[in-house]
């Protein structure tokens, strides 16, 4: 075993260990602790000076009662379900919006593609927070959208979009659209144009050639895009707290409130651990999709 190879493999593992596993273990440990009015706001705290006996008492004081609590209060599982639902619907809408954009980009002539790509990436040049805030100016009762619709006479009372789930959907779709467009575009861009011609030659109409050839071949991109939107959307906090209303129930918001409003770190940690467990399922599926694609040599 040569040193260079070891070093090459060790670096990402050390990174994961220090920045993912260790913080996760700390959060997991807090989730097993009890709430306390102290600094830090939980007990027990491991005291290395107490030695082996101290460690044993420390372990004996850890328990799963916070997780049990999560199942008892309907707020939590409702928040999880509601988050799953909002993330799933938002992902689907993003797909509906993103696919035509990616398709259009892939069909564009070579000279236009870099410009179109730039336009998709351009929003990242501004702060995410500012972009979400600016939607208030568009969606609120006195916002541009309502003013425009009132001016055209389509509506006579302002639409209440702000502080509803609709606003949250708009925010998520807008924010995560590039994550959907780019993987689909990269799948469509690789597509050999003669495949479509071959499908037409063998009797397909334009539409059926799309559904039988283009879409199945862009599926890896669609799956990748959906995961890239779904996973962060599930734990999203900023968008529902800025654009959503009091009825918008999302686990990110609950998590925030437990940590900062209630200062109940152990329960908040338990919420975070469960969220992670929920996310592991799609993440593993995503990894498998990527691997399958590599194996297929596509």
């Amino acid at each position, binding site marked *: 075993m040569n040193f260079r190879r070891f070093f090459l493999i060790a670096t990402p593992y050390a990174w994961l260990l220090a920045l993912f596993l260790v913080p996760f273990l700390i959060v997991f440990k807090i989730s097993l602790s009890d709430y306390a009015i102290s600094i830090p706001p939980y007990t027990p705290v491991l005291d290395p000076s107490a030695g082996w006996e101290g460690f044993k008492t420390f372990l004996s004081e850890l328990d799963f009662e916070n997780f049990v609590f999560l199942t008892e209060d309907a707020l939590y599982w409702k928040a999880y379900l509601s988050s799953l639902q909002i993330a799933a619907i938002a992902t689907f809408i993003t797909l509906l919006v993103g696919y035509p954009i990616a398709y259009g980009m892939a069909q564009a002539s070579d000279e236009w593609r870099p410009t179109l790509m730039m336009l998709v990436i351009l929003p990242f040049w501004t702060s995410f927070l500012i972009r979400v805030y600016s939607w208030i100016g568009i969606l609120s009762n006195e916002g541009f959208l309502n003013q425009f619709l009132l001016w055209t006479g389509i509506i006579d009372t302002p639409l209440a979009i702000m502080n509803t789930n609709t606003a949250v959907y708009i925010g998520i779709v807008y924010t995560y659209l590039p994550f959907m467009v780019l993987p689909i575009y990269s799948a469509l861009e690789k597509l*050999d144009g*003669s*495949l479509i*011609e*071959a*499908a*037409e*030659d*063998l*009797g*397909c*109409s334009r539409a*059926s050639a799309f559904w*039988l*050839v283009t879409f*199945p*071949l862009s*599926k890896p991109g669609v799956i990748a895009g959906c995961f890239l939107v779904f996973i962060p959307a599930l734990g999203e906090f900023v968008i529902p707290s800025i654009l959503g209303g009091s009825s918008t129930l999302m686990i990110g918001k609950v998590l925030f409130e437990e940590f900062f409003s209630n200062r109940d770190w152990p329960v908040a940690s338990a919420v975070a651990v469960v969220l992670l467990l929920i996310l592991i399922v799609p993440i593993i599926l995503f990894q498998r999709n990527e691997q399958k694609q590599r194996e*297929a*040599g*596509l």
Partner: protein
Amino acid sequence: MAQPANRPVFAPWNDPEEKPLIQFKGVTKKFGEFIAIDNLTLDIFRREFFALLGPSGCGKTTLMRMLAGFENPTTGQILLDGKDLANVPPNKRETNMMFQSYALFPHLSVWDNIAFGLKRSPMPKEQIGPRVEEMLRLVRLEKFARRKPHQISGGQRQRVALARSLAKAPKLLLLDEPLGALDKKLRQDTQFELMDIQEKTGTTFVIVTHDQEEAMTVASRVAVMDHGRMIQVDTPDRIYETPNSVYVADFIGDVNIIKGTAAPSGDNKYTISWAEGQPPIIGTTAAAIGKDTPVHFAIRPEKVAISAEKPADRANALQGRIEDIAYLGNISTYKVELANGTMIKAQVANDRRLARRTFTWDDTVWLSFTDTAGVVLLT
């Protein structure tokens, strides 16, 4: 295509009663200012194996894409079986195409690739399976039916593409550089396989190729194209033996071309004076050429004999010095420099072992050919 002696010669183009399957009538295709096809008129007959041959950019691919329906003529008409093809989209044409890149659907198995067109046709479901099996047998891929295209070799992929394009039994099969991606040995085997399949299925094949050897091997007729025009449409042997222009003579095979001025010497014979100090060349042509007409005399290297002594019985004999010898195994090409600096190539079959070769570098030799061996060309 070589025909056995006991069968009538396949030559529908010589039969005025025969109705062509495809007719191009004054077809022009422009891309912007660029003229890809220039006022082309051409008939292709049923069961023909028709080769479109030419350098890249000569318009042969455009011609094929117009037959498939991916391009429409700017002016003129294309008829298939007497019906105008204008405004008939590719999916409604009774033509199928085998693509240069094969264009196999990577997400479908070999079986599903072949069945793809059949499933889109009015064929009843229970007939699709047997038809696919039949196609798999035809291209000898029964064992690979469940594989995906990336799990088989290039030669196998080529055969899947062929089976897929033949599955719907099209009136016309278009092959766009079908063998371009195969190595030479496999290509030669596949050429014979293609001819075999063409004969078995009785389909009309139109093949696009830039490989003149391939066109000569497979085709019943070859069309040599240049700059969107048909230069010559003829059987392979006539293209080779009696090219109608310097372009065709030069494009097909190896040739010596000598520029000179012709003077009739009776009996279809012409005396071509071509260089100071060199004896004039005696050539034959049926075309009537006036005195002092500038002509090109084209002669194939294999029709030039090489000898140590001046042969008495041949109409033409030129003396020179062996400048170079290219040994190709079965044949050797001698490059002989004449006294005035002209290079003439002569090809000799190596029927003896190399060590017993009669001539070597710098030998003075005589090149000779009969008065009918070459062709006299005006253009």
